[in-house]
């Protein structure tokens, strides 16, 4: 049974990775299981300097999911390289660093700093709905997306994953723009912008008013977008959005994702990502699938 998949020439032992922002840099979850069971760890977004993030409350539960507006709190690239990267290197897994910024120069600075570091892929976060500058500003305009992709590629030694926002009219237009700009891989979907009102306090449930919605409630939207994107680009896709089980992951793979990310489910169960990897294997045994790659995009 072969669970290996390849993303832009990088081989992963299995298609399961963590969704950026839900797993830190892995340290907290390494207390529960060996991170080496995962295909890759995708870190929380890293900027050129430390970011303090948004005021609290930063999250709220919603039915079948949650809203978050953490605001990309992160220690910046220096601390990341000094502390988090050496930690992750200890594990037999691939390392994908999520990169965030306020300007094109910010992104390029982080990408350049990582060029000589032991990082396998870079994921460019142009789709965070919770920061005022940067983030989604690049992810909702195809011209801006293509331009930043092209710019980042100039500085990148590692293959580039462009993480797409679902908060657009046509995801395929954005996917094509990223492909035109030279992206190596696409990941989708980031969170869907949402809002929750606390009717008892008569205010917004989170301080930022709006937040990014995630969790199983958004899964059908994510599967649809992965499917649509897979029809129009040649790039491999990392699918995510509410995956909680091997069965959920198989939906994304069958829709066209080469790999999958586990996000909010990590909060409902710290072992979630490991269980998804086991669940995919169980599915493969159940249907006698020799190679997981046979099933990528098998539903058309």
């Amino acid at each position, binding site marked *: 049974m072969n669970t290996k998949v390849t993303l832009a020439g990088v081989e992963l032992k299995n298609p399961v990775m963590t969704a950026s*922002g*839900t*797993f*830190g840099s892995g*340290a*907290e*979850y390494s*207390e*529960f299981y060996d991170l080496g069971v995962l295909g890759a760890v995708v870190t*929380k977004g890293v900027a050129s300097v*430390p*970011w*303090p*993030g948004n005021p*609290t*409350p*930063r*999250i*709220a*539960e919603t*039915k*079948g*999911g*949650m809203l*978050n507006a*953490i605001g990309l*709190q*992160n*220690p*910046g690239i220096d*601390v990341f390289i000094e502390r988090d990267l050496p930690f992750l290197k200890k594990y037999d897994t691939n390392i994908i660093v999520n990169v965030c910024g306020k300007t094109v120069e910010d992104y390029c600075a982080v990408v350049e700093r990582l060029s000589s570091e032991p990082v396998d892929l870079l994921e460019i976060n142009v789709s965070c709905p919770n920061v005022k500058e940067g983030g989604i500003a690049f992810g909702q305009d195809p011209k801006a997306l293509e331009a930043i992709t092209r710019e980042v590629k100039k500085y990148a030694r590692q293959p580039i994953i462009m993480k797409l926002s679902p908060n657009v009219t046509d995801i395929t237009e954005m996917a094509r723009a990223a492909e035109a700009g030279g992206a190596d891989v696409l990941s989708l979907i980031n969170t869907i912008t949402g809002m929750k009102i606390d009717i008892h306090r008569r205010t917004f449930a989170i301080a930022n008013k709006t937040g990014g919605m995630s*969790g*199983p409630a958004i899964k059908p939207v994510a599967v649809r977008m992965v499917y649509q994107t897979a029809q129009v680009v040649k790039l491999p896709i990392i699918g995510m959005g509410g995956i*909680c089980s091997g069965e959920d992951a198989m939906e994304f793979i069958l829709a066209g994702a080469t790999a999958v990310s586990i996000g*909010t*489910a*990590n*909060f*409902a*169960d*710290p*072992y979630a990502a490991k269980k998804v990897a086991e669940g995919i294997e169980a599915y493969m045994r159940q249907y006698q699938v020799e190679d997981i790659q046979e099933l990528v995009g098998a539903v058309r």
Partner: protein
Amino acid sequence: MKYKESATVVEQKEIASGIYSLWIQTEQIAKEAKPGQFLSLYSRDESRMLPRPISICEIDRESGKLRMVYRIAGKGTEEFSHLATGDRIEVLGPLGNGFPLDTGAKKAFLMGGGIGIPPMVQLAKELDMEVQVIAGYRDEQFLADELAANGSLYIATEDGSAGTKGNVMDSVREHALTADIIYACGPKPMLRAIKAYAEEQGIPCWISMEERMACGIGACLACVCQSKEVDGHTHVHNKRVCKDGPVFLSTEVEL
């Protein structure tokens, strides 16, 4: 170590209106738990994904049992309130740092307000010094027997139905109490008043903070509080309530 366990409910009862006492049997968690730490309790309903952080009220390390006393605050805690003897519940813990016990202090205030009172029970048991518990209730009392068993208990009620009419600070003033260390848990206005008092008196004050959490283990950065010093994680001024706390020195955090 943190453990995710399927714990067995030993006993649950409502000890005041909407306030429940839940004893659970754990494999490892109780053995390693400390006063001031908390557990994440998971709902059985998959539409409620996030665990509920509940503070530890009592620890029976010998038998591996833990007591949590919580208020129904929404649908998740409402679900927990129906747990009966023999039922299973998924829990993760022990989480957070807990209260420091060996401080060299001799005389303590343990100040709890409302649903901030429960952690004071185990703390009162474990502190090796003179323990003065000051419990502030809106009206109905709970855990008073347990608190009185491990220290001198002073009560304040907002409606004046028992003890001092007012809050915990009113009780301290009425009885002219003194201490050389404070441990506190409760609503923010109460913590602010206690922090100001501690600074005035020049005594250390350990407060247990609350913030909405997602992961409960320090990864998601949802539950931060503003800290005076640069935090160890992000190197800004945001300490994680779930991991760096929930107990902080009052001078360390902005309230």
